[in-house]
């Protein structure tokens, strides 16, 4: 859970004063919070940790990191999908 995954901002909206975004992690979309990177714009990449954008990254390094998560098969786990029910052993 301590890793952070880069994703691309698709949409930005306001939820009662909190800046939220839809983000794409290589085909998996999630709702995330932009309160800590309020100047993020659509099309940019951010590193996201537990639903919060914490750091802006360039597209090339974002895509490279995403590929690594995919290769390792841990993208879903980091995004909180299918948690711990099926542990590798």
């Amino acid at each position: 859970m301590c890793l952070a995954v880069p994703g691309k901002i698709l949409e930005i909206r306001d939820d009662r004063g909190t800046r939220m975004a839809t983000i794409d992690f290589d085909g998996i979309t999630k709702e995330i919070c932009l309160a800590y990177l309020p100047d993020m714009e659509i099309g940019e990449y951010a590193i996201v940790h537990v639903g919060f954008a914490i750091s802006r990254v360039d597209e090339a390094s974002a895509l490279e990191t995403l590929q690594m998560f995919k290769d390792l098969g841990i993208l879903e786990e980091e995004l909180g999908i299918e948690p711990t029910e099926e542990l590798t052993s």
Partner: protein
Amino acid sequence: MKYLDEFNDPTLAKSLFADIARITTKKWSIMEVCGGQTHAIIRNGIDQLLPDAIELIHGPGCPVCVTPLGVIDKALEIASRPDVIFCSFGDMLRVPGSNRDLFQVKSEGGDVRVVYSPLDAVKLAEENPDSEVVFFAIGFETTAPANAMSVHQAKQRGISNFSVLVSHVLVPPAISAIAGAPNSRVDGFLAAGHVCSVMGTWQYGPLVDEFDVPIVVTGFEPLDVLEGIRRVVLQLEAGTAELENAYPRVVSNNGNVPAQQMVEDVFEVCDRQWRGIGEIPQSGWRLSSRYSDFDAELKFDVVDIDSPESEFCRSGEVLQGLIKPNECEAFGTVCTPRKPLGATMVSSEGACAAYYQYRRLDGSPVEVKVG
């Protein structure tokens, strides 16, 4: 050299390994603080491709692993209550408490839910006004701003059926405790990149000066880890101790200032127990008194729960870098990811889990199928 093929740039990896071998003339022990780095090291066999003179010591940077047993027992107690929806990150569900884990509470009828973001728990509280929604707010500095926002938002929106069980831990005091221990073997540190993306690098300069150790802020991808190691070795061989940032594409000196401000508003520094290690002064965050209405420990009266740790589990020694996971008698025999004795065998960032997944019982690599 089968591992080299698994780096995303094998040529660069090879030249980094060659460079490290060339500059290394003495024995050095380097601690990687972050559990994500530990996994990259073990998975890619970095420790075995490095010169024998360089030993990597796996640090305590797995938030799930260091969450104290007493706090897990508090979580189990709260999650068992009939009116409670207990929300947690997925990693915590199989972490053993004194007698059971959150999965068991769930199978016995407790309403335990995995959330991706702490804000999902706030939403659940809004949607379920007749239930008490409790979020298990654990983690290092990377996670704290997200958890802080959930409390802030609940207060702002007047959501009174939401509360948090907080057990936050901080990296710099842990480095301080390890570097300052009389039996410390650590010559240099790789600091955790994502922690620094939030907090910046400025907290680490004073540690470099106080303990005269190189600290290099490092990412968690295999090539990032190699570059961090190379920079620490360069400094050690030159006899210097400086703070370096080897992860500038993500980490700045100041870090994420709005996130730091939110944390400062919601939390305050406190002494904290680390599972397997003991108390480290000023090494955690708890809810500030301004937010005590959202303190699940007070709300559910579990403040006094305190639990002695298993004598059989040696995860404390693993977390302090005193033994490697496979040197524990229980490793892979009575302690496996399905039946863990300690949290280091459970978490996706725990050192014991990394060794179990990628190594044989004697610590040598298993053949990993490359997909």
